[in-house]
């Protein structure tokens, strides 16, 4: 429904089901599915298909996500829209292939080398997975950037009832196509929004695409007055729209003395813990993050200003909590609850921690 018509992938637990479903579904809607020889090749094919005009995606898990980093950087530099799903397992290395984890948060941000912008979305339910997948395609098309859907194994394998919106009720965004004749087209010139229009290969707009720093025509350059504006534009095209990327749900935060900041399957446990705590008369709330990167500094600052303490439970050694502490600047006390034994955090564990730290 998001308009995806190309999938290239490589089998990997716990993300293989996405590939199997795409193998079945894409031919039914005239789309292309291909199983590649590895994850590097998968994302290469995805980027190629996107350059040829197809909305494209792939899905993987930790080890495959590591291999994809090379081409995430390429898509970022060459500004090719694509969507990458990472169903997280505990790492490093082969790690725990079948157990839930949230330990790729920092890799999703900084996994590929060099300064680069990235958008990372994190669903916590089946419906949100659907909703954010549509949004992932929309954002990748709008900003011409790779978008990563970061999911834990619990949410990825979850089955629950959902009511999907009608097809025409969904807002689907497509990349801007140039309106000028080919001889006037300057592929990487900033039209004012920071996002240049993008034709497909074969449309008659012959242009050059490279992973090297390039000038507005796409040709390699080392000129300081061309290199720096490019990297700045890559960042500002997304950061200038920062207000449009504050996606979160809040529960009982108005009068909360302790606020939980959570995402993915942990946010589900946290919601139950908040409900139980409220029954016990504790004034606690929850902010569920749907966007992890760019980090929602503004939203989090508001929470930190209005709470006495915040609690960041995560299935890792402390990744989003580092960001929260960075933004915190001594506003309030930041407590963490980290679980890295391969099992999900239970509501009771969060509740116990809440009672422990409750002022």
């Amino acid at each position, binding site marked *: 429904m998001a308009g995806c018509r190309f999938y290239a992938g490589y089998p990997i637990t716990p993300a293989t089901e996405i590939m199997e479903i795409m193998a079945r579904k894409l031919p039914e809607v005239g789309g292309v599915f291909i199983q590649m020889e590895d994850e590097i090749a998968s994302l290469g094919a995805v980027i190629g298909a996107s*350059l040829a005009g*197809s909305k494209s995606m792939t899905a993987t898990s930790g080890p495959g996500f590591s291999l994809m980093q090379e081409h995430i950087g390429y898509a970022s530099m060459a500004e090719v829209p694509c969507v990458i799903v990472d169903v997280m397992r505990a790492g490093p290395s082969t790690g725990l292939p079948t157990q839930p984890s949230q330990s790729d948060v920092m890799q999703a941000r900084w996994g590929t080398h060099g300064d680069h912008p990235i958008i990372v979305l994190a669903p916590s339910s089946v419906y949100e997975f659907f909703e954010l997948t549509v949004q992932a395609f929309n954002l990748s098309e709008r900003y011409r950037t790779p978008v990563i859907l970061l999911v834990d194994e619990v949410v990825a394998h979850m089955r629950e009832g959902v009511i999907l919106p009608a097809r025409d009720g969904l807002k689907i965004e497509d990349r801007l196509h140039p309106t000028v004749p080919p001889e006037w087209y300057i592929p990487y010139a900033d039209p004012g929004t920071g996002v240049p229009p993008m034709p497909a290969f074969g449309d008659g707009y012959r242009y050059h695409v490279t992973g090297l720093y390039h000038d507005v025509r796409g040709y390699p350059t080392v000129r300081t007055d061309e290199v720096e504006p490019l990297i700045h534009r890559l960042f500002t095209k997304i950061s200038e729209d920062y207000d449009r990327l504050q996606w979160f749900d809040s529960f009982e935060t108005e009068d909360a003395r302790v606020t939980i900041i959570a995402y993915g399957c942990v946010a589900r446990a946290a919601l139950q813990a908040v409900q139980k705590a409220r029954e016990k008369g504790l004034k606690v709330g929850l902010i569920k993050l749907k966007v992890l990167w760019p980090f929602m500094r503004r939203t989090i600052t508001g929470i930190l200003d209005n709470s006495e303490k915040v609690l960041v439970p995560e299935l890792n050694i402390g990744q989003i909590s580092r960001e929260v502490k960075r933004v915190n600047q001594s506003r309030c006390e930041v407590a963490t609850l980290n679980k890295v034994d391969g099992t999900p955090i239970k509501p009771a564990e969060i509740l116990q921690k809440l009672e422990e730290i409750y002022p």
Partner: protein
Amino acid sequence: MRETAHLVHDYLRSSKRFPHIWCAGCGIGIFMQALIRVIDQSEYSKDDIVLISGIGCSGRLPVYVDFNTLHTTHGRALTFATGIKLANPRLKVITVMGDGDAIAIGGNHFIHAARRNVEIASFILNNNVYGMTGGQSSPTTPHGAITASAPYGNLEPDFDICRLAEAAGAVFVARSTVYHTNLLERLIGMALQKKGFSMVEVVSQCTTHAGRFLELKSPVEMMKWQKDNSVTVEKAKQLSDAELAEKIVIGVLVDRERPNYHEQYQNLLTEKSKV
């Protein structure tokens, strides 16, 4: 001669990109001209062609020519090419790679592209060395050669790219040198016609780096070496393995038919759309 030069100019991007980065005496330019001449004679328009490269000296080729051009990552040109051909089968997809690019870091992609048989015309410019990084051993550097990364002599045997392509399933495999330009053009033309994965190994000279370990001092000497050491496929059949040991066998090595991936996929789509 003037006519030829004029024709090539019609296909070069005039804006900003010259002079090119290749050393004087490099063989890549000879290949580029040959490719342009063949495309000019073909049915393809500039808009139909997507020219894709990896990283290295050969990787810089697409930027100079006026097609849809894509300079990808090291060794991965064929993966992008696969995605483009499948997303828009109308496009004529061509890849240009180097020996280290295609056979070392891109070896996995190379054998699977050949096996899968998506219609891609691929050209491997084999100069037996990593040129851009300063003359290190590549998978096609001769055994015993002294290189920047093998100062005491290369201990590894070299790869026969054509035999690799044949074993992996390429439907068209051929070899030429840049000295044999007429043959080169004929092979490029045949590769572009082929409805599957085709590969032409283009033996080229790196006078800056490979010239040193091959003890050939100038581009002219290197091209003479190509001339003197080449034998045609036909002639090679009459020679023993020992006689062929140091020779470059040129001509069409494999030309066969096999179902290609994207046509099978299009058939699947047609079938599914009827349901």
